[in-house]
């Protein structure tokens, strides 16, 4: 892909108001989009760490159980419940993005976002309770 950027592109795409500017005008779709991007960054950060941690399997049972113990403290368990929330949001909003892209869903993007938020709350709370119960036992 050539990275040449025409003056028109620069004006219409690059110089428009950004979501992190104080006078950006928010709407439901931009809210969904920003959450999707932030959760995406968080998930990539987690993925890289996760592969690094799990690769200790190749160093045998002692090394693996040792590293798992290090990430098995209550702090990490609570963070894992947060991770579950981030996953659920990104997964279901991702499905919303696909519906919007492929099935003229832009008509219903706002309603679809409310469905995503509903599923996010239900699944995060439900899964969080199960994980919290595992933590206690």
């Amino acid at each position: 892909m050539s990275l040449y950027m025409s003056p028109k592109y620069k004006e219409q795409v690059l110089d428009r108001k950004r979501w992190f500017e104080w006078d950006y005008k928010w709407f439901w779709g931009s809210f969904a989009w920003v959450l999707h991007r932030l959760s995406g960054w968080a998930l990539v950060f987690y993925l890289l760490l996760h592969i690094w941690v799990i690769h200790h399997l190749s160093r045998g049972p002692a090394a693996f159980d040792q590293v798992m113990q290090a990430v098995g403290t209550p702090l990490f368990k609570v963070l894992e419940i947060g991770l579950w929330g981030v996953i659920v949001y990104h997964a279901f909003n991702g499905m919303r993005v696909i519906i919007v892209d492929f099935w003229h869903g832009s008509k219903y993007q706002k309603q679809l976002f409310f469905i995503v938020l509903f599923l996010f709350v239900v699944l995060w709370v439900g899964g969080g309770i199960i994980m919290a119960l595992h933590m206690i036992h």
Partner: protein
Amino acid sequence: MSFKSSGNSGAFAWFYQRITGIFLFVILLLHFTIMHFTGTGEITYENIVGRLSDPYWKMLDLSFVVFALYHGLNGIWMAIQDYVRSEGWRAVIYTILVLVGVFLFFLAAVTLIPFGLK
């Protein structure tokens, strides 16, 4: 200098982002369910050995790693294209993303493939 990322307009990256997304939707939710909901919550070497010695699980996990790395790093690249205008910095970041992807795939492959074969 015109830095070339993939020799196309980005349409393939856009399309594959959705394809891998659908795959990850299924496999990641399954992965998390098996690891955190249906099990005891205890993840030990012994618990994992059995699954990873099975060639089907091994293939599934390897494709999981490939799809997740592609989806994640391509997502970062899409965000970078929104914010970074300098072609030099784009080239540097793109190279880093590719190297990180290759390195972590290598780590995952040397962990998964020999499992149960020794």
